[in-house]
């Protein structure tokens, strides 16, 4: 049976644009049909924007790459209409174990908090995620939505000015030209678009190499846990990670150190003995995918350059410990989709797009900070750093005291846009977790989940307080989601949104982030906050 990544899911097909007399202009062209590009395309199409997606390939990503998808990512995919399929296919896990040398130091449970529709994480091969995204695009296409996914369309030149973008694209049948109001570069860490524009990164290369392998173990004896080893006997002086994916595929991550011959180490005759030493000599396995990876912790100085906007790995990169790559890319896409839509409609000023830079660069900085700290713990950079690292691990075997210092990756949580220019008033007496800038916290309601009620527009969540059903600001209609005590199934609505106050009014953005909050409804204040969240002068 063919693997899903061996099948051309979006094979080249000639498009009328290729026969046009003059280059056709589209509002949005996305380059890269990976998780970020496809999520962005679906979000924009659901908002009514026509979208062209170009990819130089015609298949989903070979090998699994990203595997760990966070609760926030699943919430975004719920809104895009594909959450259930991903959760059904994925592997849920909660237990993590940490080993040092030959001993287990401790185990931890992610213990998902009660009252959330989605688990903290699922593991799923990136090619399955991409397949689900492509399937979703096809469903939207069949419903007549304007989404054009073009395989084997490789961008060869790009020219951007303040008014638009011009592209030359090569196909199996020769080149053609397109114009776009906006070009979104979701073309990965090696981003050809970034290269064509002569742009670069700030930040540092993490000087280490990792062997990443996906192995199939038909009678897999390893449980559904995340296991992390510091300095194990089978990979002395380095680290190792083992993680389960669907279909009896396990992710193996072996640190190799800096002075290695990458081509040599990638050869099966060198990979197999390493994997065998790890899994035990009697374990049967088959290599599905192998890669040697030197990762980076860095981001572009700005993500927006005239009419070209970067999202995902093309804009920022982190180490793999913490699942902060693909997850943060999906959050870039959701942050950008509604802003681009409103700017193209003329419902928000172009300056709204500047908040994409402000919010997502802050998120990238946060991810890089976590990622850099994890790599510094995993690979101490000095003798004294190693001394403390080993002391933390030694103590943690016996005492809970130092376990919070053990850092094998701080798993992705959504960024809170505390310093966002879009934030409006806060009432500090209300719970910190739902302050302006944060993602709305899910809650079980008497008739479903709160996150499923936040459907992608501006909404006014009111709890125990009267307010109009609709507030209109220019072309924007803010619909009220009215809740009261009778909706609060288990007290969590009150705990997460009211705390010590008796009522609450929350302005929710189209990306389910909170823009402002009050204890009572005041029309003028709400209108002012909506304008602020649209990037209009305050």
């Amino acid at each position, binding site marked *: 049976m063919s693997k899903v990544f061996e099948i051309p899911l979006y094979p080249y097909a000639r498009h009328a644009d290729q026969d046009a007399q003059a280059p056709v202009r589209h509002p949005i062209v996305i380059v890269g049909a990976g998780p970020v590009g496809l999520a962005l395309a679906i979000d924009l199409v659901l908002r009514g924007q026509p979208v062209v997606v170009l990819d130089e390939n015609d298949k989903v990503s070979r090998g699994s790459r990203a595997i760990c998808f966070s609760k926030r990512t699943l919430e975004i995919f719920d809104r895009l209409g594909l959450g259930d399929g991903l959760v059904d296919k994925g592997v849920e896990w909660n237990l993590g174990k940490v080993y040092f040398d030959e001993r287990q130091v401790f185990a931890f449970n992610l213990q998902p908090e009660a009252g959330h529709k989605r688990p903290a994480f699922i593991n799923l091969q990136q090619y399955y995620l991409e397949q689900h995204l492509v399937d979703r695009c096809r469903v939207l296409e069949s419903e007549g939505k304007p989404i054009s996914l073009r395989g084997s369309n490789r961008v060869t030149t790009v020219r951007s000015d303040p008014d638009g973008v011009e592209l030359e694209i090569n196909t199996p049948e020769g080149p053609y030209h397109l114009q776009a109001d906006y070009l979104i570069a979701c073309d990965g860490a090696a981003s050809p678009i970034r290269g064509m524009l002569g742009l670069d990164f700030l930040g540092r290369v993490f000087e280490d190499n990792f062997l990443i392998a996906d192995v199939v173990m038909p009678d897999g004896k390893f449980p559904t846990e995340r296991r992390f080893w510091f300095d194990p006997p089978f990979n002395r002086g380095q680290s190792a990670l083992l993680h389960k994916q669907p279909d009896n595929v396990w992710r193996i991550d072996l640190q190799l150190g800096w002075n290695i011959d990458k081509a040599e180490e990638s050869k099966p005759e060198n990979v197999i003995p390493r994997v065998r030493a790890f899994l035990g000599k009697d374990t049967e396995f088959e290599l599905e995918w192998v890669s040697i990876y030197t990762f980076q912790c860095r981001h572009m100085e700005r993500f927006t350059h005239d009419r070209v906007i970067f999202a995902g790995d093309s804009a920022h990169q982190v180490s793999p410990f913490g699942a902060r790559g693909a997850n943060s890319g999906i959050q870039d896409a959701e942050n950008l989709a509604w802003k681009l839509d409103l700017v193209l409609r003329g419902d928000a000023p172009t300056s709204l797009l500047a908040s994409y830079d402000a919010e997502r660069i802050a998120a990238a900085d946060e991810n890089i900070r976590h990622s850099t700290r994890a790599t510094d713990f995993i690979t101490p950079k000095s003798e004294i750093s190693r*001394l403390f690292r*080993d002391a*933390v691990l030694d103590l943690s075997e016996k*005492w809970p*005291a*130092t376990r919070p210092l053990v850092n094998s990756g701080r798993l992705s949580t959504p960024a809170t846009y505390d310093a966002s220019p879009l934030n409006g008033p806060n009432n500090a007496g209300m719970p910190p977790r739902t302050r302006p800038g944060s993602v709305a916290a899910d809650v079980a309601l008497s008739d479903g989940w709160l996150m499923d009620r936040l459907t992608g527009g501006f909404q006014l969540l009111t709890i125990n307080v009267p307010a109009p059903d609709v507030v209109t600001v220019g072309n924007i209609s803010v619909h009220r989601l009215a809740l009261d005590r009778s909706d609060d199934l288990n007290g969590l609505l009150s705990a997460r949104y009211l705390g010590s106050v008796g009522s609450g009014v929350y302005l929710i953005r189209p990306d389910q982030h909170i823009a402002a909050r009050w204890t009572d409804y005041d029309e003028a204040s709400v209108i002012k906050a909506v304008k602020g969240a649209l990037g209009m002068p305050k």
Partner: protein
Amino acid sequence: MKLNTLPNIAEADDFYADLIAAHEGLTKAESDAFNARLILLLANHIGDRTVLSEALSAAAK
């Protein structure tokens, strides 16, 4: 300043003798590891980030 920089240990000579005795018979590497473990345990006991920051500054001077 929240860090207590005044004398605070009863029987100070005894504590000092215990500290030195704890290192007896250890190699340099073992002593260094012992010190690291001791710092981490004491830091956790203090917990207060302001006190810890002030201690880091005071020790650097």
